[in-house]
């Protein structure tokens, strides 16, 4: 009987311990994301970037310019051209501080002196107030193939 009582109390302690641990673990697991989300801000960004050619190296174009819209400031970009698409890295340096770097894949929609293009972008990193920025979006634009002046209209949702 005494052994049974001891066994019962051990089981009771174990169940209690499990419940306490479970509650604690549950609390941590449910509390952590909400705290994490609460720290991150979200932003819908709609910007127009006007870029000019800085230099070329083979199939790669290096461009700089200005952005107007949600994040006004300066923009620098590196575009790698191929027969059917253009991949690039674009960095928005916000005049309010911080920067956002995005990768972009664009597809030409027309030829001629003024070529239209459109594509998708992914926000991968940032600095300053945009540290750890993440997001995605789309863009359309035109490129003057005589001067390589490029205008890009980008729209993206991001958290930081």
């Amino acid at each position, binding site marked *: 009987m005494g052994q049974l009582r001891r066994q019962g109390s051990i089981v009771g302690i174990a169940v209690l311990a499990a419940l306490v641990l479970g509650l604690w673990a549950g609390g941590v697991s449910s509390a952590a994301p909400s705290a994490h989300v609460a720290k991150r801000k979200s932003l819908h960004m709609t910007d127009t970037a006007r870029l000019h050619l800085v230099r070329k190296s083979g199939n790669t174009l290096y461009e700089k310019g200005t952005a107007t819209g949600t994040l006004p400031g300066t923009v620098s970009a590196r575009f790698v051209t191929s*027969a059917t698409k253009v991949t690039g890295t674009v960095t928005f340096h916000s005049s309010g501080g911080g920067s956002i770097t995005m990768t972009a894949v664009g597809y030409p929609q027309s030829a001629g002196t003024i070529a239209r293009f459109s594509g998708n972008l992914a926000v991968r990193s940032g600095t300053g107030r945009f540290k750890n920025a993440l997001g995605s979006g789309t863009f359309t634009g035109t490129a003057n193939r005589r001067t390589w002046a490029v205008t890009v209209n980008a729209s993206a949702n991001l958290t930081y």
Partner: protein
Amino acid sequence: MRLRLRPRAALAALAVLCVVAWLDGTAAAAPVRVAAVFDRDAALGGSTALDVRLRLDPSQLTRAPLTEVRFAYPRSLGLVSSGLGLATCTRPASDFAQVLIVAPRLGGCPPNAVMGFGTALALVRLTNGQVIPEYAAVTVLSGPFEHGRLGLVVFVDGQRPFGAKLAFRGEVGDAPAPYGGALTVRMPMVPGLEELATISLVELRITIGSHAIRYYERRGGQQVAYRPTGVELPLRCPAGGFRFRAQVRFADHSRRSALSSTPCPPAFASPSSGR
């Protein structure tokens, strides 16, 4: 005097024999050969004309007509980023399926569509067995943008003795590494021509971004001619030089290919490097 001339003549004869033997040996070794050459003053980081030479040895190839020529170029070479092909040459579909009786200069296409000039030599084998060489001028133009690719239009303007004028369609597409893109020109059978003769291409030489190309733009209300920027060279040389690949296909579905590597030009851009 005689004694001095004889060794010279013997040396010259020996040199000629060596060259002939070397050419024979090369031809025997490779039924298809390709070579790509940059401007003499080209420099890394600058722009250049790209002279492509394709040679085919009909004695080592099928007698079936040529149906496609594909020329792959290195990934780092800037063809799309060049200033070539700013206008579009759009021709009716019927132009690509017949011998053109009347073809205006550039096939009636805008001068700003020209991407390259060249020449071709073909052997025309008549039904009676007679073989006649035909020389032609070739113009490569940018065509309509279709299915996400830049189109090409190639005009072959026969000079002598037949003077046949033909138009072919092509495109600039992707190519697997180490190549970045490929110019493809398709040569379907021209109805009516196959009953008269078999045409075997022997040599095709095209200069993309040729110095002879002139574009026109409006500046200050006036039409001004300028030479478009040629093919862009990267600042760094790819390992092993610039590698090119040519592939030809024939009507009997056989295909042949050839590789070439172009050495790197100097690593500095002089002001006169083709810009």
